[in-house]
């Protein structure tokens, strides 16, 4: 990443006593790696390597879509999987590019840092013999300023200045300005390194989980791994390290546009108890997360959980509240209520796997004429369910979705549809009596909130790094390094008392405004304007 502007050539290395081929190879490879050309190539590789991550679904972003991709492209998906196509940003090839890039960066900025520190401690170099060879120069004119005054004038304009008296009686003023450009440049690149390290540590020591929290004190959640719907711990985090807190969703309010049903606002009210302390009521919403000690709770979605009561053929009843997942903006929601432990004969106390019950279907908060909801709030709620009887397949132990029945069981015929093709409609409070006399009652609904709970220990550090990087970037893009010299020749006997000052200027970067600045400096010296 070396931006060579005008770096003096490195002093020629002394000829090696014993040419060592391995050493030469290593040294040349290192030089090659830290060259600007390589850095540019690596930058482009990084850009190109990032593209697949926007084309293929990413597991870290949305694992559901990866599963869908598998279903849609059964041949291609495993190949992509092996190439890291579903985890581009965690893949070895992506990592190798950015690690090489950062190695190249380190190999470039550390020598530059040393150079820069040296340059900061050195006085500006003495004036060249001839000013007319420089991009900017002004011939000797009688000036109101002595060299010392000219030096003070330049110092006032925040130049670094060195006054030198020569043996021939001439005095030179050397001035240099714009070291902030290189300082900013180095700050920017070191900030990038800090951000990368921060991201790495955040990955190691952070954790996150998702959880659907249904309203009601009986549906509370405590922060332990088992209670999450899905969760990921960083490699250096142990399940026992998770902070101790419990949440209950006391209230969830959503408001919508009356005509279009577009959401207007959400508000979740929760009871929070941290470290087994007293329960406090807190409110949070989208864009305004609940910040706890070492955990942030974000509201990322909501929906309806349906409460149904099933009464089996022996008269025993069970009540369940199950979240249904919204499938469109009007909250047409899909879900399933499963009753594996029903129809147990009280005489034998034995469970008949062929008599387990499952109800699958949709919940519509506002029923219209079609099969989908027409408004997201509960204006005319109804359930549309299909009843299944048989083995739900829950005892096998393979983890399946809790929002749909096991399709494999239905295909093998172990789980049978017992209510016909058309789903049965159940209004609020209605009871549905099945063919064998068992009953399903639609008791009501409760709102639920989808929570993302996260902890990233380094995110504020990364923010500081990013802001520093931006400041460095602006300094480096806005700054201009330039040198200005004045030379006063020894006074000749016929002079009228003023000093004869000649000036020269050298912009060290592309700086179109330098001519004006130089002219202003020369004028200031001539007129004695400090």
């Amino acid at each position: 990443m070396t931006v060579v502007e005008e770096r003096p050539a490195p002093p020629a290395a002394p000829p090696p006593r014993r040419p060592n081929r391995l050493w030469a190879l290593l040294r040349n490879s290192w030089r090659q790696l830290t060259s600007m050309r390589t850095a540019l190539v690596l930058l482009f590789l990084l850009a190109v390597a990032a593209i697949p991550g926007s084309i293929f679904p990413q597991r870290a972003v949305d694992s559901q879509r990866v599963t869908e991709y598998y279903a849609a492209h059964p041949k291609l998906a495993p190949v992509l999987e092996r190439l890291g196509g579903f985890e581009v940003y965690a893949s070895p090839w992506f990592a190798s590019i950015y690690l090489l890039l950062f190695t190249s960066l380190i190999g470039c900025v550390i020598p530059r840092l040393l150079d820069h520190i040296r340059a900061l401690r050195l006085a500006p170099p003495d004036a060249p013999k001839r000013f007319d060879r420089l991009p900017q120069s002004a011939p000797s004119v009688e000036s109101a300023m002595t060299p010392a005054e000219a030096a003070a004038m330049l110092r006032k304009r925040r130049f670094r200045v060195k006054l030198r008296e020569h043996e021939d009686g001439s005095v030179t003023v050397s001035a240099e300005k714009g070291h902030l450009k290189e300082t900013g440049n180095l700050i920017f690149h070191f900030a990038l390194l800090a951000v990368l390290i921060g991201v790495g540590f955040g990955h190691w020591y952070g954790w996150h989980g998702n959880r659907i929290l249904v309203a009601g004190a009986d549906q509370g959640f405590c922060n332990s791994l088992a209670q999450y719907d899905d969760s990921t711990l960083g490699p250096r985090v142990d399940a026992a390290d998770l902070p101790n807190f419990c949440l209950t969703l006391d209230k969830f309010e959503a408001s919508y546009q009356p005509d279009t049903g577009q959401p207007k606002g959400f508000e979740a009210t929760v009871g929070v108890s941290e470290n087994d302390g007293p329960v406090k009521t807190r409110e949070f919403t989208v864009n305004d997360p609940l910040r706890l000690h070492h955990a942030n709770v974000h509201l990322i979605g909501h929906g309806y959980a349906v409460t149904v009561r099933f009464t089996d053929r022996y008269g025993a009843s069970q009540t369940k509240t199950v979240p249904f997942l919204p499938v469109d903006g009007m909250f047409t929601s899909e879900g399933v209520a499963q009753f594996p432990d029903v129809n147990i004969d009280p005489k034998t106390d034995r469970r008949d796997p062929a008599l387990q019950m499952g109800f699958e279907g949709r919940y519509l908060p506002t029923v219209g004429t079609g099969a989908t909801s027409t408004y997201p709030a509960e204006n005319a709620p109804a359930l549309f369910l299909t009843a299944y009887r048989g083995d739900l397949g829950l005892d096998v132990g393979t983890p399946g979705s809790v929002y749909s029945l096991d399709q494999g069981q239905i295909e093998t015929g172990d789980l049978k549809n017992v209510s016909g093709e058309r789903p049965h409609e159940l209004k609020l409070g209605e009871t549905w009596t099945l063919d064998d006399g068992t009953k399903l009652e639609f008791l009501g609904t409760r709102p639920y909130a989808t929570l993302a709970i996260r902890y990233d220990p380094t995110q504020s550090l990364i923010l500081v790094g990013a802001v520093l990087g931006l400041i460095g970037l602006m300094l480096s893009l806005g700054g201009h390094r330039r040198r200005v010299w004045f030379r006063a020749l020894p006074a000749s006997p016929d002079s009228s008392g003023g000093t004869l000052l000649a000036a020269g200027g050298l912009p060290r970067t592309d700086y179109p405004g330098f001519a004006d600045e130089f002219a202003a400096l020369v004028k200031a010296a001539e007129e004695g304007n400090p």
Partner: protein
Amino acid sequence: MAELSNQLMAVTVLAYLAAMVLYAGEYAFGAKSRIGRAAVLPARELVGAGAPVPDDQPPSPVAVVPNSGRAEWVGRAAVGFNLLALLLHLGTLVTRGIAADRMPWGNMYEYILSATFVGSAVWAGVLLRRPALRHIGLFVSLALVLLLGADGMIAYTPVGPLVPALQSYWFIIHVSTIILASGILLIGAVPAAMFLIRDGYDRGKRRFPYTLGKSLPDATLLERLTFRLHAFAFPLFTFGALIAGPIWAEASWGRYWNWDPKEVWAFISWVVYAGYLHARATPSVKRTVATWIALLGFATMLMNLFGVNLFFSGLHSYANAGGM
């Protein structure tokens, strides 16, 4: 008010179109007195057309040619229509904002409307400070007509309130800086392309796009303008996309960086533009190569503006593309 905004939008496009036609007229009928071309000019004057170009660039020689009148008037009328179109563009945005009672960048239609406005305003600023660059106007107005036309036809969305996910003050900070930065970066591609054409022409290339080069401003001037626009927009883009964006993402989605398609492409654009700035600062890399990198950055910005919204769905999907 929403109705008025839509009508203003149509008139804006027509005004840009008129400016474009007039720029083209000047382009076609005016002999171009460009810097460093004073020598060929007498011959051109005989043909009867010569547009003087007021040029306040100190280092470049000013070529003043007797005014032929017609072409000059056409050029002035083009600038007039361009500025009028800019005002109408502003009117479209303001009425849209009043109609929706919020900042007018809540969906893709409004976003493009705002980004093109920034681009157009930057161009107007350049035009007023450097009248020598007037000939670029043809390409700028062409780009604006195309972008606004596509916006109105593909991405139009009726006025509506913001979804809760966008109800945050970061909405104003994040989106406005990105709009500003994208607008400048998009407009920065115009002098970049002009530079490549002019430079190719100067080096003796006479195939089609390079034939346009003879009427373009000085290559160094174009190259410097390209760099300054990019050097100004890059930190803005860094702030908008890589600082303000992640801060908001942390508050809204819980994670500061999600590798959402929009983020991926912003990252790609950032990396490519960083490559441009590095290439330009390296003496061993030719300025033409660096400028090609800037144009590649422009392509990635377009991909992010249109492609990502149309082809991919992701967290930024509420920037809906009018039902597409």
